[in-house]
C-alpha cells in the first residue's frame, strides 16, 4: 500500500506505457465526440449491449486463435448492425437489445470456457487489459479511430438534426434511418476499441459518463461536445497515470475519475437550477 501514489515509480513506468497513453488519448477523443450524440439518442443501453458483444467476438477470436482486437471489432459491428436493423421503433429497442445482449453474453461465456489458454486473457476482455497493447493493436486503433472520425465529420450535421428533431429532419429529406444504422456502426467500432482498454463492463465510463456530465452543465451542443472530450481525456489519461504505481487495473481508475467528474457536474447543475 505504501507505493500507491509513488511518484518516482510512476515516472519510471511512463516509458513502458507510452503506447497505452497514446491509445487512451485517441480513445478519449473518439468517445468524447460520439458521447453527446449517444446520450441525445438515448443509446446508453445499446452501447452497453454492443460492448458485451465485442466481448463475445473477442472470446470467439481467442478460441479460434486470431487477434482479440479483430474479434471484438467484428462482434460489435455485427451487434450494432443487428440493433440498428431490428429495433426500428424506439419503444421496442430496449427489449431487442436485452434479448441480443443476453444471448451474446452467454455465447461469450461458452467460448471462454472452451478456451484453454492463459486465464489472464479471460479477465482482460471484461475488465480491460491495458498493458498488452502492442504496436499492431495501436495502429489498428488509430486507423479505426481516424475512419470513425472522418465518417462522423461528413454526417455530423444531418445526424445531429435527426437525433434531436427526427420529425422535421425526415420532412426535410434527411435519410434518418440510414444515418442511424451508420451511427450504430460508428459506435460499434468505437466500443470495440474501448473494450481493449477498459473492458466490456466499463465502456460506458468512456462513452456515456463524460457526455452525461457535460450535458448537465451546458445546453450548447458544441460546448457539450468539447467538454465531453475534455472529461473523457481527463478520465482516461488520469485513470492510467493513477493506476501505474499501485499496479491496479486501469479501468477501475478511469471509471472512478469519470464518475467523480459526473458528480461534480451534477452538483453544479443542481445549484444552477435552484438559482434560476
Amino acid at each position: 500500500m505504501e507505493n500507491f501514489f509513488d511518484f518516482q515509480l510512476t515516472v519510471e513506468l511512463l516509458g513502458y506505457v507510452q503506447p497505452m497513453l497514446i491509445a487512451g488519448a485517441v480513445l478519449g477523443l473518439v468517445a468524447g465526440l460520439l458521447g453527446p450524440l449517444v446520450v441525445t439518442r438515448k443509446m446508453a443501453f445499446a452501447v452497453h449491449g454492443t460492448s458485451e458483444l465485442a466481448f463475445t467476438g473477442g472470446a470467439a477470436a481467442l478460441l479460434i486463435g486470431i487477434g482479440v482486437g479483430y474479434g471484438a471489432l467484428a462482434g460489435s459491428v455485427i451487434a450494432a448492425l443487428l440493433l440498428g436493423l431490428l429495433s426500428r421503433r424506439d419503444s421496442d429497442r430496449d427489449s431487442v437489445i436485452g434479448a441480443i445482449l443476453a444471448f451474446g453474453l452467454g455465447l461469450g461465456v461458452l467460448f471462454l470456457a472452451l478456451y484453454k489458454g492463459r486465464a489472464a486473457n479471460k479477465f482482460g476482455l471484461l475488465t480491460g487489459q491495458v498493458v498488452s497493447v502492442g504496436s499492431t493493436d495501436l495502429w489498428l486503433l488509430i486507423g479505426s479511430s481516424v475512419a470513425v472520425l472522418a465518417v462522423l465529420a461528413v454526417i455530423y450535421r444531418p445526424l445531429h438534426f435527426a437525433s434531436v428533431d427526427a420529425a422535421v429532419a425526415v420532412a426535410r429529406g434527411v435519410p434518418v434511418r440510414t444515418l442511424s444504422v451508420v451511427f450504430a456502426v460508428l459506435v460499434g467500432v468505437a466500443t470495440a476499441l474501448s473494450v481493449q482498454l477498459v473492458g466490456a463492463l466499463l465502456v460506458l465510463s468512456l462513452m456515456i459518463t463524460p457526455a452525461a456530465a457535460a450535458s448537465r452543465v451546458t445546453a450548447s451542443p458544441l460546448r457539450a461536445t468539447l467538454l465531453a472530450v475534455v472529461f473523457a481525456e481527463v478520465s482516461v489519461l488520469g485513470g492510467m497515470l493513477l493506476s501505474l504505481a499501485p499496479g491496479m487495473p486501469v479501468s477501475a481508475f478511469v471509471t472512478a475519475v469519470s464518475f467523480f467528474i459526473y458528480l461534480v457536474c451534477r452538483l453544479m447543475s443542481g445549484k444552477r437550477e435552484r438559482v434560476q
Partner: protein
Amino acid sequence: MTVWGKTAQVTDRSTRAAVALRGARLSYGDRVLWDGLDLDVAPGEFVAVLGPNGSGKTSLIRVLLGLQPLSAGTVHVAGGNRRIGYIPQQRAIDVSLTLRGRDLVGFGLDGHGWGVGWRHRRERRAAVDAALESVGAMRYADAPIGLLSGGEQQRLRVAQALVGDPEVLLCDEPLLSLDLAHQRVVSDLIDARRRAADTAVLFVTHEINPILPLVDRVLYLVDGRFRIGAPAEVMTSRTLTELYRTNVEVVRVRDQIHVVGAQHVCEDEPHHVADEG
C-alpha cells in the same frame, strides 16, 4: 418540382401550383380518410385545413412531405423537401435535451447539409438571429429548449420553418398552446411571409377565427367527406350540416364564426364549437 405517386402527369396548371393533388385517395386498410381529393394551392395562397380529430389532416401533410404514399391519385409539391417549411404537430421535448432554441432554428436553415457546418457560420448566425428576432424569441434563444413553455417552443418552430426560405409552408396546428397575442404574432408572420415571398401555406387548425381574415380557402374534412372553397362558402350551416350529417348551425358574431352542433362535433372541436343542448 418533386413528383410522388403512381401516375405523374404534370399539367400546365399543376406546374404553376405550389401544391397539386389529383384524385388523391388515402386509406389505411379498409378505412378511407379521403378520396377524390383535387386541390391546387397557388403560390402565395393561404389554405386552412379544418376537421375533427382523426379526419386525416396530419396524414394529408405527411402525404405532401412524401412520407405517406397515396392509395390512389397523384401529388406534386414545388421545390422538393428542401423548400418545404414544416411545423409539426406539437410534441413534448425532453427537458434534459442538450439543445438551445437557436440550434433548433439553425436546423431549419441547413440541418440537412453534410459536414459539420463550420464554414458560413457567421452568415448562418445572422440568419438565425433574424429569424429568432422575427418571432420575438431572442430572449430565450440560448436557454435549454426543454425548459421553455409550449408557446415559446412553438414560436421557435415557426422561426425554424421560415428561416429555410420555403416555397411551401405546411403547418400542423401551429397555434396550439399559444395565447391570443402570440396566435396573432405567429399567424401574422406566416401571412407576411406568403405575401412577401409567394409562399403557399397549408394551415391545419382546430380554430379558424384567429386566421379567418388571412384565409383564402378552406379544406374541411369530416369522416371521408370534404369541401373546398372560400370561408364564406364552406363555413355555412348548410355545408357543415351536409359534412357532419347532423344538424350544425354556423353563427356569425361580429367577424367571428361559431359552429353550434351535435355532441360529437363538440368533442372534436373544443375551441370553436359550442354545444347546443
